[in-house]
């Protein structure tokens, strides 16, 4: 870390020392036998701050107020438990096992297939959480990677999911996530613009026209999509590439702090007054339609200005891309298209 950045960060953390101590005292009071001293607690919070608030590339360090807000939002009891478990504290493990084994078992049973036994998954998760490698005399517990930013339950769900994937891969030698997951269509080779294999002069003209429109359409769409905001792109990718349903996206943005939700709500005057209200599937659909509108506007202007296409030709491009017209239909479609106004 750059020295000046480090100095600013250290200063900001020092200013928040009393807040961190107060959090530690609260945690220690609720779980006195976890044996986490102030130094260990400070180190855990420091790791979380480094990970989420320090931007080394841009040289940004958080202010004391940002740190206070950040630590105030942490799942502090979950983090306290995880830190104690990472250190192998028996009381903490007892508490963890009581509170989360049922959940781990449920996810493992839900995800386990015929090849991957749920009991094996649970065992491997516990082994990973405890840690079997020693580096510099420290056992590398998976718990040490949990920062308390999300809930321990959510983090465990991801850990179990990864364990199932790893086990599945080990069983199937190099099977990718794409093969395993039911979503992920982007790697599949789908036939796109229908390949033509027809002879004759008219077919050749068709091919030339078709190629011209194909290139123009693809370039215009690439440009139109590239100019979208990252949040809009992610929404499109979840819906069109990963195949998430509207209700699944609505669930992703259920939490008012969800980055996608906040971004789209900032764009919408209507919902800005009620940021806590539930996001319905229809809302997600509206967000998508707004994005389509942006794409359409840019798509048309790209084809008109850069490729010099007429309205009728633009329509043909859209038709070809969506209907995948056969070559001979291209000219017919153009001939039937209304004249440009």
């Amino acid at each position, binding site marked *: 870390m750059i020295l000046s950045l480090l100095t600013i960060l250290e200063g900001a953390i020092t200013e928040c020392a009393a807040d961190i101590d107060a959090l530690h005292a609260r945690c220690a009071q609720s779980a006195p036998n976890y044996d986490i001293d102030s130094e260990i607690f400070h180190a855990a919070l420091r790791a979380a701050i480094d*990970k*989420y*608030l320090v*931007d080394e590339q841009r040289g940004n360090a958080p202010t004391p107020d940002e740190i206070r807000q950040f630590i105030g939002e942490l799942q502090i009891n979950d983090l306290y438990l995880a830190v104690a478990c990472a*250190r192998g*504290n*028996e009381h903490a*493990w007892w508490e963890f096992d009581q509170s989360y084994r049922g959940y781990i078992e*449920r*996810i493992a049973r*839900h995800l386990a297939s015929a090849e991957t036994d749920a009991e094996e998954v649970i065992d491997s998760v516990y082994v990973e959480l405890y840690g*079997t490698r*020693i*580096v510099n005399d420290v*056992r590398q517990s998976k718990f040490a*990677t*949990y920062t308390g*930013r*999300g809930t321990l339950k*959510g*983090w465990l*769900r*991801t850990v179990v999911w990864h364990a199932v994937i790893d086990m599945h891969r080990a069983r199937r030698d190099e099977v990718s996530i*794409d093969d395993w*997951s039911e*979503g*992920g269509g*982007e790697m599949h080779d*789908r036939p*796109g613009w229908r390949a033509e294999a027809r002879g004759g002069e008219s077919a050749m003209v068709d091919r030339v026209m078709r190629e011209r429109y194909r290139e123009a359409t*693809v370039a215009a*769409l*690439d440009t139109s*999509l*590239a100019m*979208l905001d*990252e949040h809009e*792109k*992610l929404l499109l*990718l979840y819906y*069109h*590439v990963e195949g*998430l349903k509207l209700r*699944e*996206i609505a*669930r*992703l943005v*259920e*939490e*008012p*702090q969800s*980055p996608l*939700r*906040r971004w789209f709500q900032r764009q919408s005057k209507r919902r800005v007054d009620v940021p806590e209200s539930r996001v319905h599937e229809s809302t997600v659909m509206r967000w998508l339609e707004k994005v*389509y*509108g*942006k*794409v359409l506007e840019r798509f048309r202007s790209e084809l008109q200005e850069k490729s010099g296409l007429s309205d009728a030709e633009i329509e043909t491009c859209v038709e070809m891309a*969506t209907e*995948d017209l056969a070559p001979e239909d291209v000219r017919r479609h153009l001939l039937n298209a209304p004249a440009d106004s």
Partner: protein
Amino acid sequence: MPRPKSNKESDRLRRLVHQHLQHRPASLAPASSLGAHLDEDALSAFIEGRLSNLESAPLVRHLVGCGSCRRITAQLIRLDTELSGVETETIPASEEPGRIRRLLADLASRVLPSSEDDVVFAYHAPADDFEKQDKAIEQDDDESEEKEQG
């Protein structure tokens, strides 16, 4: 910003974008300079919507460009939906005295020493009060057994 004028136009646009993204998902973001994949901590915090604008911006950027991480989040969202609303049972506190101790001892026995000199202790500071608790439970069990026999 123009919204699609009709359901038909909206549907056509949806299909246009869909077909294009199916073939060229990378058109939304070049895969360069994405950095390391997201870890479990960042993935779950993102899915739970816990991150601030400052924290989420690089993650959103990464998810746009990284199909692998994006697919994982999509799978986790589905899993979350499938598991929602179902309570998980908790293990009764006094079900099996000493179980955690045995569990930790078992886990500790699997630790791989990095060198021959490394000595791995079973686990951190077993507490006396657990032993007392175990003994108390065992004593209770013995007493109830005696009562039943009596």
